[in-house]
């Protein structure tokens, strides 16, 4: 077979430009790949977008048996025949990055699917190690795999691990440091397909992965390979390859992709049959019970409510209340700000700069106090909670529970992921809309995120202000926002062209999240957030500072007052909060909070201003992310809808509350 001819060249160590051997981690989603990555690399990791995409790839250094490696953690892939952008990035890394070795992290209990990927890697002719992870879950289900037998069949190093317990980690390191080889899987496709593989292979340029595997990808009609092929081969060769593919399809009579996939899966099943044994296990674990209950049509609802309540307690009470109280009032209010103020007052003689740092719109007194005192505790607790939800496997179950509600808005349950993340940070959530498959779904989700999903920091302040009013006020706010979310989502689903993508989601078992992994994810997200947010806080404050200095703030406030004062019935000073809200929505909320604590807002004014601000334009970072993800034209259209909608709804609410003289206390 072809694998033999290429394997000799593979044995020469491949070295990257940085001088370090590259090890690429590959695996299906939810197999604990990132935990393995964390164990191998320790704490040093950099997350960056793969060139030309916003799919994140994590790089880290690993020191294994006196040898340094550069470890690359790829996005989860169910197949190396890409069906999603994530899978394409993984395939492209294998295609162009010249890995010295591939470490496939697989699910022990799901051996057939795991071997399906091993077969594809073998076809590529890449030297690899197979790590069968989550051995504990397999054992719980009465499944065991004969590792020695599998080693013999594949002819490569195979290890068994339980990543969160660090079990098998030493074996894995030894396997990585070993010579390694290309697995021998003994797969032959139907004669006709083999015939065309041979013909196409002969036309292909030499690459990092075997030409046989490229020929199989082409025959499977892998469109994502086209751009690479047009760059790598001359146009008449590309045409000839395309002609051969069409001819093969015609002669074969049925879908080649399906036949190729079937052949692989059959071979994977054959191997699994030999090395895997099952015994029936009585009863089930508490986690399995929780997994079933949390997607039950009836009992899933109390679970959902309990999760939301826990989220509120953790982020709303612990984060937004207790921690903000400590950091903002005690740490900043009593120590940091007075110290820095007195320091600056005594050493900085120029009043202008002094104001810029510690005045009403000062970088320290306003920007940093808000950024670190209010926003940081809230987002950090939210990201911890989100990482726990993510790693526990609850989020896909939430998607099951909410699929029908999202169907009203023209989306599928999959949209629950960016929407829940939107309750943390809208900017990050807009980026995450990539998990949705069609452009239409992404547009609707982005629009709804931008219009009606408040971020954690904003939510913290909103809940704090509304909490001071009454439950009734909270319910009105919630009703208006959720109602508008459903209504505009429904309208958008009618207006935005295209089909709703189908809902298909793998549901991992409920798991105990690994503390290390949760902390690592949270740390990465908090760092990302601070890098994005703090500069924008400072720019925003500076703009306000200058507007104030040249007295333009007053002019803008007067110019906008017909809307703010007339339509919404708010005090003129609230204008600044809305202006500032564009730089950070949460920042605007904090501005309203200050007005309210100063006793400048009546209950009706508080509610109207909060509803309007919730719906109002997203923050600057969110806005830039919208442009990046959806394009400037779509973003401007969205803003042109969002601003009038927010003001109209606020205006109507103001009129209704006053006309019916509704008591909010």
């Amino acid at each position, binding site marked *: 077979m072809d694998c033999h001819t290429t394997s000799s060249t593979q044995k020469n160590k491949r070295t990257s430009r940085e001088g370090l051997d590259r090890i690429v981690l590959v695996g299906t989603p939810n197999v604990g790949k990132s935990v393995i990555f964390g164990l191998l690399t320790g704490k040093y990791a950099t997350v960056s977008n793969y060139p030309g995409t916003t799919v994140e790839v994590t790089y880290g250094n690993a020191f294994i048996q006196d040898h340094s490696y550069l470890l690359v953690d790829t996005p989860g892939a*169910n*197949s190396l*025949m890409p*069906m999603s952008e994530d899978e394409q990035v993984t395939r492209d890394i294998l295609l162009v990055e010249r890995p010295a070795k591939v470490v496939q992290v697989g*699910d022990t*209990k*799901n051996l*057939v*699917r795991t071997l*399906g990927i091993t077969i594809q890697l073998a076809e590529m002719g890449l030297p690899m190690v197979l790590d069968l992870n989550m051995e504990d879950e397999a054992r719980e*289900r009465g*499944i065991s795999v004969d590792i020695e037998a599998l080693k013999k069949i594949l002819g490569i190093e195979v290890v068994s691990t339980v990543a969160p317990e660090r079990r098998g980690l030493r074996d894995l390191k030894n396997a990585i440091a070993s010579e390694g080889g290309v697995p021998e899987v003994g797969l032959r496709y139907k004669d006709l397909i083999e015939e065309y593989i041979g013909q196409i292979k002969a036309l292909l340029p030499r690459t990092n992965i075997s030409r046989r595997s490229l020929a199989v990808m082409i025959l499977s009609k892998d469109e994502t390979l086209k751009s690479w092929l047009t760059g790598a081969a001359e146009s008449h060769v590309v045409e000839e390859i395309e002609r051969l593919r069409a001819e093969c399809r*015609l002669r074969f*009579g*049925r*879908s080649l*992709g*399906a036949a190729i*996939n*079937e052949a692989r*899966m059959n071979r994977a099943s054959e191997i699994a049959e030999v090395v895997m044994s099952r015994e029936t296990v009585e009863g089930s674990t508490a986690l399995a019970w929780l997994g*079933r209950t949390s*997607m*039950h*049509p009836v009992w*899933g609802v109390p679970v959902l409510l309990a999760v939301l309540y826990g989220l509120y307690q953790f982020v709303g009470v612990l984060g937004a209340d207790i921690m903000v109280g400590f950091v903002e009032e005690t740490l900043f209010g009593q120590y940091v700000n007075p110290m820095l103020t007195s320091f600056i007052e005594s050493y900085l003689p120029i009043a202008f700069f002094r104001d810029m740092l510690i005045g009403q719109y000062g970088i320290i007194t306003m920007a940093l106090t808000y950024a670190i005192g209010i926003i940081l505790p809230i987002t950090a607790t939210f990201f911890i909670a989100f990482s726990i939800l993510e790693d526990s496997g609850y989020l*896909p179950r939430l*998607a*099951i*529970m*909410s*699929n*029908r509600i999202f169907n009203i808005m023209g989306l*599928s*349950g999959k949209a629950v992921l960016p929407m829940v993340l939107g309750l943390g940070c809208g900017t990050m959530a807009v980026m995450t809309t990539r998990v949705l498959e069609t452009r239409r779904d992404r547009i609707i989700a982005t629009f709804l995120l931008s219009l009606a999903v408040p971020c954690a920091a904003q939510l913290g302040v909103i809940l704090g202000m509304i909490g001071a009013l009454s439950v009734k006020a909270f319910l009105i706010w919630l009703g208006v926002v959720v109602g508008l979310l459903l209504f505009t989502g429904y309208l958008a689903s009618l207006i935005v062209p295209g089909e709703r993508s*189908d*809902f*298909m*989601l*793998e*549901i*991992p*078992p409920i798991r105990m999240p690994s503390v290390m992994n949760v902390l690592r994810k949270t740390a990465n997200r908090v760092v990302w957030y601070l890098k994005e947010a703090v500069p924008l806080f400072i720019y925003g404050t500076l703009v306000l500072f200058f507007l104030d200095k040249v007295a333009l703030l007053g002019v803008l406030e007067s110019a906008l007052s017909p809307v703010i004062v007339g339509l919404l019935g708010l005090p003129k000073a609230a204008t600044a909060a809305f202006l500032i809200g564009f730089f950070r929505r949460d920042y605007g909320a904090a501005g309203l909070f200050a007005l309210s604590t100063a006793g400048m807002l009546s209950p009706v004014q508080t509610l109207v201003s909060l509803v309007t601000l919730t719906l109002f334009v997203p923050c600057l970072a969110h806005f830039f992310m919208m442009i990046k993800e959806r394009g400037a034209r779509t973003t401007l259209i969205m803003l042109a809808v969002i601003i009038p909608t927010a003001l109209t709804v606020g205006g109507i609410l103001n009129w209704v509350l006053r006309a019916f003289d509704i008591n909010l206390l």
Partner: protein
Amino acid sequence: MSKPCKLTDHSTGESLFMDEALEAIWELQEKSGTASFNDLINMMGHHSRLERMQKTGLFSLSGDAITLSEQGHARARDIIRRHRLAERLFADVLDIADYEDDACRLEHALSREAEEAICTLLGHPPRCPHDKEIPRGECCAVFTRKIKPLALNLREMEVGKEGRVLFINVPAMDRLANMGLVPGAIVRLHQKKPSYVVEVDQTTLALDEDIAQGIYVKQQG
């Protein structure tokens, strides 16, 4: 659009020719309510052979309009049924894109037993891939009374039951295959609400009703 079956060497036998003619008459009647003899000749050629066919008593002419006799109607109905079932078999189960010629050949070759087995396998489909009606057979009548079809889609399957996947007819077929949901696999339907949840081997998948409808299984137990 389904085209009339081409007259190839296999149609030269008189019985095969008559099958093709009856099929054409059925399709003409289906399209416009009546079948004109002139249209039939335009469609098939072989004027003299068609003239001769009148004597078999399969159809009679009043002016230009064709009326099928009872015997002719039954035979036409059978051939149409077999053709359209064959189309469904090739399109849905075997995933063959260019199935028309094969369907034309198979319609003459199927025994009653094979025809009913295919119909049952397909779950007694009411319409062909071109959305034309498939005449009901005896097996379909029995099915509506007591026997459950062999092929059920997940929507029709009972919660908690297992089934072997027979065929999958949804656009997301390849993605399902990557998760291990392929023909031959055993699926267990865990729940239908609020979303469909199935287990395949050790993989749990949540699906839309749209996808669930396109996955056909043979229910077990």
